[in-house]
């Protein structure tokens, strides 16, 4: 059986739920720097919260999880290409 190229997009109800989750994560994000008990894990925690928001928007609002695999490949080539680029920029500026 042929694989279905892409699935139907979500309903407005799903969009509102995702927006509520994004609002909740943002509230936690804003609180984290002011809670001193979280200082040891502040950096990874803030990165994790940003990643949740990033992938929620990309997956649901940009519909990437419902789209053709080609679009995912094209986009994530750029997203993950950032990391070697980071290294190149830092090396070129003698950061190490």
């Amino acid at each position: 059986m042929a694989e279905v190229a892409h699935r139907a997009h979500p309903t407005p109800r799903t969009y509102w739920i995702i927006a509520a989750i994004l609002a909740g994560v943002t509230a936690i994000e804003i609180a984290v720097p002011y809670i001193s008990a979280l200082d040891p894990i502040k950096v990874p925690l803030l990165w994790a919260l940003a990643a949740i928001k990033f992938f929620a928007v990309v997956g649901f609002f940009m519909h990437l999880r419902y789209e053709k695999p080609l679009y995912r490949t094209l986009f994530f080539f750029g997203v993950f290409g950032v990391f070697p680029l980071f290294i190149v920029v830092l090396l070129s500026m003698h950061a190490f």
Partner: protein
Amino acid sequence: MTSHSVPVEVHDHHDVRPIRKAAMWVFLGSECMFFGSMIATFLLYRNETGDGPGAEIFDIPFTSASSFILLMSSLTMVLAHNAFENRDPRATRIWLGATALLGTIFLAGQIFEFTEFVHKGLTLSTSSFGSAFYMLTGFHGAHVAIGVLMLMAMFYLSFSGRLYDDRGLNVELVGLYWHFVDIVWIVIFTVVYLLQV
């Protein structure tokens, strides 16, 4: 000799929508690298404040509020796209207008923030920190401004009934661009503001 008239199907219209959409994803991927290099530069210079102010002048509650506004504009954008897919021009127009409005509020907030920072002594030439900060957030602001212009163009087209004229930009492509502007800000807000507190 009998002649049969055979209907000839002329395929003079190719569906270029998937190609345009793929091109948009390639563009957004390349934009990730563009902003990635600017974020790397900011991280490198974040402590190079010289005699000028540094991250202590940031007003986190204010920037949090404007970040929240931009985040919610992604919701209104996806609702505009949903209405567009359901061939509901009125709802599409309302949500497009709401998205443009939220984007404009974000931009107004950024202009206010920049003005405050300049008054506190942080300019583009004050320090490496200032240069990296204004270049990164300024380029993002320019992207938001372009997005608002495209949203307003879509809003205008919705009145003239040309919203579904599928030859150029459409709501879906503008939406992808707008969501991208939002996800870039998610990263900038974390790296530039929250991690510097």
